[in-house]
């Protein structure tokens, strides 16, 4: 009978980059195979936007003024809506336990999962946003500001939302709670995001806003996965 290989001889560690890519691929594959989850946030986004002209006024000038805020608030809510599922299925089927028991850095896997989530929600929202901007009579000068601010802002939303998702993953009724936890934390992104769109509409430089959104994103990328990893360990432990 062959003996167990000693610890030193087990040398199959995949590198950090390979691990990140493997985790990203796995999560993208999972969401692509479940089409409904992919389109649900987009449909929600579209529906909420439709409510505003119906509820407030269809008058173009008025809507154009409202558009930056409405677009950003809807994008924020759509992201929030999809957040709960980030770790939920992994928790339910036991893959989360296996993930926590891995000697590989949890930080990397968490970051990959969030990146995959963002590609399926934030990035998709960014891509359809100009279309919806047109429906709300957002002036065409505002479009670059809208796209760029969403591109920089939505990853931060996913990162912060993931903290809420990790904290509530062990709870049956996590859905509403997650919004309570996360919405106040979304406020800075909302302020700078709408600020960028409004500045772009009025022809002011938007570099400052984008820089701030970028700074928030950088902070989020470095700190949020740590908080998520800690929160996951706590939630699974309980």
């Amino acid at each position, binding site marked *: 009978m062959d003996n167990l290989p000693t610890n030193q001889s087990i040398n199959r560690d995949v590198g950090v980059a390979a691990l990140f890519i493997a985790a990203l691929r796995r999560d993208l594959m999972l969401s692509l195979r479940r089409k409904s989850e992919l389109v649900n946030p987009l449909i929600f986004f579209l529906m909420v936007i439709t409510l505003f002209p119906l509820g407030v006024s269809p008058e173009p000038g008025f809507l154009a003024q409202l558009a930056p805020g409405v677009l950003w608030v809807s994008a924020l809510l759509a992201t929030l809506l999809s957040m709960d599922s980030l770790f939920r299925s992994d928790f339910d089927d036991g893959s989360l336990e296996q993930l926590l028991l891995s000697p590989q850095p949890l930080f990397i896997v968490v970051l990959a999962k969030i990146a995959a989530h963002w590609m399926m929600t934030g990035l998709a929202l960014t891509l359809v946003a100009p279309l919806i901007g047109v429906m709300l009579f957002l002036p065409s000068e505002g479009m670059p500001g809208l796209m760029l601010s969403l591109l920089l802002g939505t990853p931060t939303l996913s990162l*912060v939302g993931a*903290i809420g998702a990790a*904290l*509530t993953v*062990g*709870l049956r*009724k996590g859905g509403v*709670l997650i919004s*309570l*936890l*996360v*919405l*106040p*934390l979304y*406020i*800075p992104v909302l*302020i*700078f995001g709408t*600020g960028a769109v409004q500045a772009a509409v009025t022809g002011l430089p938007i570099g400052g806003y984008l820089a701030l959104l970028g700074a*928030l994103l950088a*902070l989020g990328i470095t*700190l949020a996965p740590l*908080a998520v990893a*800690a*929160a996951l360990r*706590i*939630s699974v*432990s*309980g």
Partner: protein
Amino acid sequence: MAKAEKKWLPRWFYQLASPRWCYQICGKLLPGFSLVTLVLLLGGTLWALLFAPADYQQGNSFRIIYLHVPSAILAQSCYMLMAVAGAIGLIWKMKVADMVAKSCAPIGASLAVLALLTGAIWGKPTWGSWWVWDARLTSMLILFFLYLGVMALNSAIESESTAAQSTAVLALVGLVNIPIIKYSVEWWNTLHQPATFKLTEKPAMPAEMWMPLLVMVIGFYTFFAVALMLRLRNEILRRERRSGWVKELLLVK
């Protein structure tokens, strides 16, 4: 590693870690703190209402500052204490720190409500409406939301230790966010209503005005200590209900 670290910390740190010691010391401190609180708050209020001069612009409605500012300061300090206590509980697995963090949340939330209400009332004679999206008031509102989130999470999780740890993580995330929120809200405020009249940003307050304010702030801090100790004692009893000393304590009565 944990054991090696322990030697570096002062002795009182470990005594604090003992719920029993903490319960007893709180019991000893409470009467003194209560007395000081009573004197400070009563004296401060009388000073503020009777002797402090009226503001030349706002008249007597200015006297609301003596409640608004201390409660706003306390609401923020309380959040900080909650997050720090939570972090200590997370790192050193110190039960008492968890209990302090849990006891902080309702007190802080109530003080945030007081700051919001007094701010709103103050806004009526100053701006002519009950609510104005002033930067300070808006930040305070968001702080209140953060408190609500912490309390909601804490009550949603059944296991006490898991609840304490999860809440601590959330409070720490909130603590990192508070400066960002404050900064962004201030930016947003100047963007939308430039150079409006600010409630509490006065150039130089004369001594007759800020002295009672100082008394009130200190009074609120001691009041907070009293309220915290009351809640902490309850929490210690509840969490330690199966330990021998609690049983003895309750059987004696």
